[in-house]
């Protein structure tokens, strides 16, 4: 198998295997397998594990049951993102955080420093990336594929829930989460078993037409699903309210890092907002291209590219909040030419729930 490799946050990662379009189609119609072993893991243990996790994240950790996961934000005091993460509750005194590869080196010190300066949490923060590898099995046939390798009743795992079980007789955390807009699983296990489990999943999915997928398809899939990518829709000077992620902010849960700035922003209102767009003229509005409203520069494309499923050129952009409504004509500067587009609601793609 020949993968085209790219440097991604210091990791040599597969950009594509058979081709982005083919891999993308496999995930929408059957199943795809992603090597996301570069993702980081942080574990928080101790009697105050829940309180500390709540203090450093935006979502309400207290609402989680053991075996449940939630999407959340790690913020700076000014409410910009340190990272966007998944918080898994293993037990009352144990939380498992899945974080972005390129941010793990700052996430861990951020959480450790928050604990030290607050000086009231009995908890340990562990940088655990070396102990886990992560694979994502995504698509309508993901369940049937993975089920062949585990006795765990996968259909009983609800969306954003997980169990600790086995895959290919290897201890693994099996979560029904993903970054593609399809049903699927993300599994975590000890890195020495990576090759074996990777190969077993490819064998198990062969009858469904499984494709190994690279970062290229991962990006087109998440873009269609309207999901944020750190460094694009969100970064250190973008807040959850601006990024359309108000639903992961629970201001009523008590004190957390970034809360004061978010309360202020909620009172005053945001000045810019994320919105989707579709190109209406020929051209592809790509990451960082400038967006014009009524002939004046007004914002920028956070992510843009072709949508293989919709066969349109789509993207997400930031616009002044008072003008960031769907149905507005905008222009995107593509190589010194203003090319017509129209704003549309997010997401672009939603799977039909059977």
């Amino acid at each position: 198998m020949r993968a085209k490799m790219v440097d991604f946050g210091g990791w040599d990662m597969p950009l594509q295997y058979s081709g982005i379009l083919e891999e993308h189609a496999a995930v929408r119609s059957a199943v795809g397998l992603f090597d996301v072993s570069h993702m980081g893991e942080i574990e928080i243990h101790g009697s105050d594990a829940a309180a500390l996790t709540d203090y450093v994240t935006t979502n309400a950790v207290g609402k989680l049951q053991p075996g449940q996961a939630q999407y959340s934000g790690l913020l700076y005091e000014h409410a910009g993102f340190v990272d966007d993460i998944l918080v898994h509750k293993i037990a009352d005194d144990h939380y498992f955080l899945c974080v972005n590869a390129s941010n793990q080196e700052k996430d861990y010190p951020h959480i450790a420093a928050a604990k030290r300066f607050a000086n009231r949490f009995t908890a340990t923060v562990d940088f655990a990336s070396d102990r886990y590898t992560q694979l994502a099995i995504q698509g309508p046939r993901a369940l049937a594929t993975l089920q062949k390798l585990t006795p765990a009743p996968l259909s009983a795992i609800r969306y954003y829930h997980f169990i600790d079980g086995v895959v290919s007789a290897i201890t693994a955390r099996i979560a029904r989460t993903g970054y593609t807009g399809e049903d699927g699983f993300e599994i975590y296990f000890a890195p020495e078993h990576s090759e074996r489990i990777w190969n077993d999943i490819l064998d198990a999915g062969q009858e469904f037409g499984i494709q190994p997928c690279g970062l290229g398809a991962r990006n087109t899939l998440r873009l269609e699903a309207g999901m944020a990518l750190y460094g694009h829709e969100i970064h250190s000077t973008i807040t959850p309210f601006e990024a359309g992620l108000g639903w992961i902010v629970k201001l009523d849960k008590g004190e957390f890092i970034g809360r004061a700035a978010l309360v202020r922003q909620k009172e005053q209102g945001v000045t810019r907002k994320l919105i989707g767009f579709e190109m209406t003229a020929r051209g592809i509005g790509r990451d960082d291209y400038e967006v014009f409203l009524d002939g004046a520069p007004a914002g920028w494309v956070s992510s843009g590219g072709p949508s293989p499923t919709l066969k349109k050129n789509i993207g997400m952009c930031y616009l002044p909040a008072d003008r960031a409504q769907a149905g507005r004509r905008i222009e995107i500067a593509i190589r010194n030419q203003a090319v017509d587009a129209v704003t549309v609601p997010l997401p672009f793609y939603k799977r039909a729930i059977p």
Partner: protein
Amino acid sequence: MYPEDLHYTKQHEWVRLSDHAGVVGITDYAQQELGDIVYVDLPRVGTRVEQGKMMGSVESVKAVSDIYSPLSGEVIEINDALATAPEKLNESPHGDGWLVKIRLSAPDEIQGLLSAADYAKYVAEEESGH
């Protein structure tokens, strides 16, 4: 792999000569490097192009890549089929996936282009340098 009758550039374009015109495309190596091509931006018929200067672009799912004119002249025909079927660049880079036809203004420029063998050698060096 690289047809003998074509002339090549280090920017991975090719030219096929006929009389005082040249048909231009991108090489098989270029299309492989780009991956699935989804959009092609070509100059209009009548545009004057200059050797080594940008004349258009091709876009894959992931990236935008400039196309440089291998020779100087005037664009007399463009491959309209690419507007609706850009995948022809992946399927047949040295054939149906041609980009433009140029009426040459300085045919001697062809002397500076690479033969199939030299281009193949150049690509091999590029690849080993990766």
